């Protein structure tokens, strides 16, 4: 489904034609640029910072290879690259860094419906869930920056349409919406672990 956007195979060596010293300098710039930001850096932004003639994708590939397995790794997320802590270090980090509350089940279901049916109106979400949706659920998702209005539906009442944001992709570590499981893959295992 989601092909990495034209990334070559992850090999640590630079493009054959690139001057090694220049490529090493490009790696330094890339590391600093991506590290400085708290949002993913798209390859196009990275290219602006690199010396001319350096392929940003080659730099990304090289940086991914060198940071793999390190406490802070380079990952592809939300259309760009960002540094993220290794998941196994979370227990130690959360002793010091405050962790937000988990989203309640209703909010997670609403988010899943918006992700798969976007843009969707509140009535459409309620129709799929077979239950009314409280305003506070929608507001919580909005406040977390996971969803955003996407215009209005041209039906009586002109209800707002909702879609997911790049922040949604970041929250769940997705490169793009195409990273979501396809609908056909969403089949319950023999013993469904879901219970009301």
């Amino acid at each position, binding site marked *: 489904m989601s092909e990495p956007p034209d990334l070559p195979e992850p090999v640590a060596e630079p493009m054959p034609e690139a001057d090694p010293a220049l490529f090493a300098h490009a790696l330094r710039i890339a590391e600093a640029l991506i590290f400085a*930001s708290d949002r993913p850096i798209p390859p196009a932004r990275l290219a602006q910072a690199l010396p001319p003639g350096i392929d940003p994708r080659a730099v990304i590939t090289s940086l991914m290879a060198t940071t793999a397995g390190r406490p802070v790794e380079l990952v592809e997320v939300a259309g760009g690259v*960002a540094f993220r802590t290794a998941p196994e270090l*979370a227990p130690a980090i959360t002793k010091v860094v405050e962790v937000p509350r988990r989203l309640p089940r209703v909010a997670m279901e609403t988010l899943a419906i918006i*992700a798969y049916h976007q843009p969707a109106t509140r009535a459409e979400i309620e129709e799929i869930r*077979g239950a009314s949706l409280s305003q506070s659920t929608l507001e919580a998702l909005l406040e977390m920056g996971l969803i955003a209005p996407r215009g209005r539906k041209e039906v009586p009442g002109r209800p707002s349409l909702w879609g997911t944001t790049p922040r949604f992709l970041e929250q769940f570590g997705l490169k793009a919406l195409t990273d979501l499981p396809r609908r056909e893959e*969403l089949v319950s295992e023999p013993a469904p672990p879901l219970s009301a």
Partner: protein
Amino acid sequence: MTQPVLHLRLDGFEGPLDLLLDLARAQKVDLEKISIIALVDQFLAVLEQARRVRLELAADWLVMAAWLAWLKSRLLVPPDPAEEVDAEALAAALTDRLAELERMRLAAAWLATRDQLGREVFGRGAAEQLRIEDRSGINADLPALLQAYAAARRRALARRPYTPKHRKLWTVQDALARLGRLIGALPDWAVLHRFLPEGLTDPVEQRAALASTLIAALETARGGGIQLQQDRAFGPILVRRAAPTEAIPDVRAA
């Protein structure tokens, strides 16, 4: 059909569809192959028990119950070609809705298994400012410069103190003297305008001179020096030297 163990905890379900999905899952087959009739029976049984315990049930539960009972009755009788609604299609639509709700539940569960930012993985906590604002440029162009000049000049000029134009006005004294000088040489009636000073072009000054001359004429007429005559309103005013005996009544007539 084994009766599922039901504890009437409808509050635990998010609406009738949620309960239906739960019951359908209990059939432990593919959602596409569930028995709608068995599902309807189970749903109605749960609702019946719930109503025995407490009478009030939310409207959406009752609407769903009524619709399911109707659907079941249609499914039990052989299909009628004249029937407008196809019961099989309605049952399939219900199955589709349950399947979609199931898929969305699974999608939510899949999302919940992901490492979440700020919980399992962390991004840079203290981002660095990567934008530098260069404010050395000036946002100004030639039209703006010219407009500014014109605006400043216009405002300054408008603010200058008002100095009225100096006017040379023909006084009543001037008019008396001129009238006295000219009237002696007058043979007969003459128009008052002839006694105005010459060379007046400004309309304001012309009107002032006319007024002064008229006052001078009235004054002279009162002294009996001249006679005045006006045939109609706004008509020409005529002047002549008075005969010493008949001056006064004519003035009254004017």
